[in-house]
């Protein structure tokens, strides 16, 4: 990602910017959707963030962590839209929608029955929103606990706890399969 950012900042390289956009837009759109809950508005939020990034490209090297910067910008832009339209100061993280996040075990990577796959998907879908968001950001978006804490404005401990809750729920659901696996081994 760094070479792309370098080309954007120092060469005003639009192709590099498009590539950078393509690499990040879907994750950010999903994140925006958690707050905005509609497609058009989420697209507007994400495009606003990228537009500002392009406009301020000369300062890109001052950004310590571009991933954290993008997520925080999306969240703040979503909050600004919310404030403008509802007059409410801030949306709580508990109010987010995570129904659109979908994680599924890859059966090409791991051997399991269709029934177990379905159970895992259901278990993840039933996680409380905050827990599901944290799990998705870490597992799918590849962010670290510390990065998620900064992005969501919650403590490291809270992120860590939410992640453990998700894992414990999966462990509980998979209890029979885990036991069976231990016996097989």
């Amino acid at each position, binding site marked *: 990602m760094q070479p792309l950012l370098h080309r954007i900042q120092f060469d005003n390289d639009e192709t590099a910017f498009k590539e950078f956009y393509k690499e990040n837009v879907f994750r950010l759109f999903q994140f925006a959707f958690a707050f905005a809950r509609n497609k058009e508005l989420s697209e507007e939020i994400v495009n606003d963030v990228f537009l500002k990034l392009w406009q301020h490209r000369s300062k890109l090297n001052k950004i310590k962590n571009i991933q954290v910067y993008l997520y925080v910008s999306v969240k703040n832009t979503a909050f600004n839209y919310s404030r403008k339209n509802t007059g409410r100061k801030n949306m709580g993280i508990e109010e987010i929608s995570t129904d659109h996040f979908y994680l599924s075990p890859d059966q090409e990577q791991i051997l399991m029955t269709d029934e177990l796959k379905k159970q895992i998907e259901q278990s993840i879908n039933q996680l409380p929103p905050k827990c599901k968001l944290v799990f998705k950001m870490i597992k799918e978006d590849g962010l670290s606990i510390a990065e998620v804490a900064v992005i969501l404005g919650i403590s490291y401990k809270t992120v*860590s706890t939410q992640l*453990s809750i998700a894992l414990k729920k999966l462990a509980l659901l998979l209890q029979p399969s885990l036991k069976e696996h231990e016996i097989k081994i």
Partner: protein
Amino acid sequence: MSFFQTNKESMIKSRIVELMAKKIGKEASKDELDELSELLLKNPGYAYLLEIVLSLKGSRNHFERDLPQEELVDHGSGRQIKSPAFGR
């Protein structure tokens, strides 16, 4: 199995989950990763759980197909956005 054995087992499982969370969350130190590997060798069921978690991935098609359409209402003059969070 005695109470103390059960309690010890549950402490070990909590520790495994804690270490797994650190590993997935990219915050585990080398010592913690080693500790996790050792614990997983003794608890192969949890090794399977970790494999499952590591294999989880998102689906773009699923996301696009499942966008909640109820947030969009048609008022005759085209779709208008109705979002509780944004008051539109």
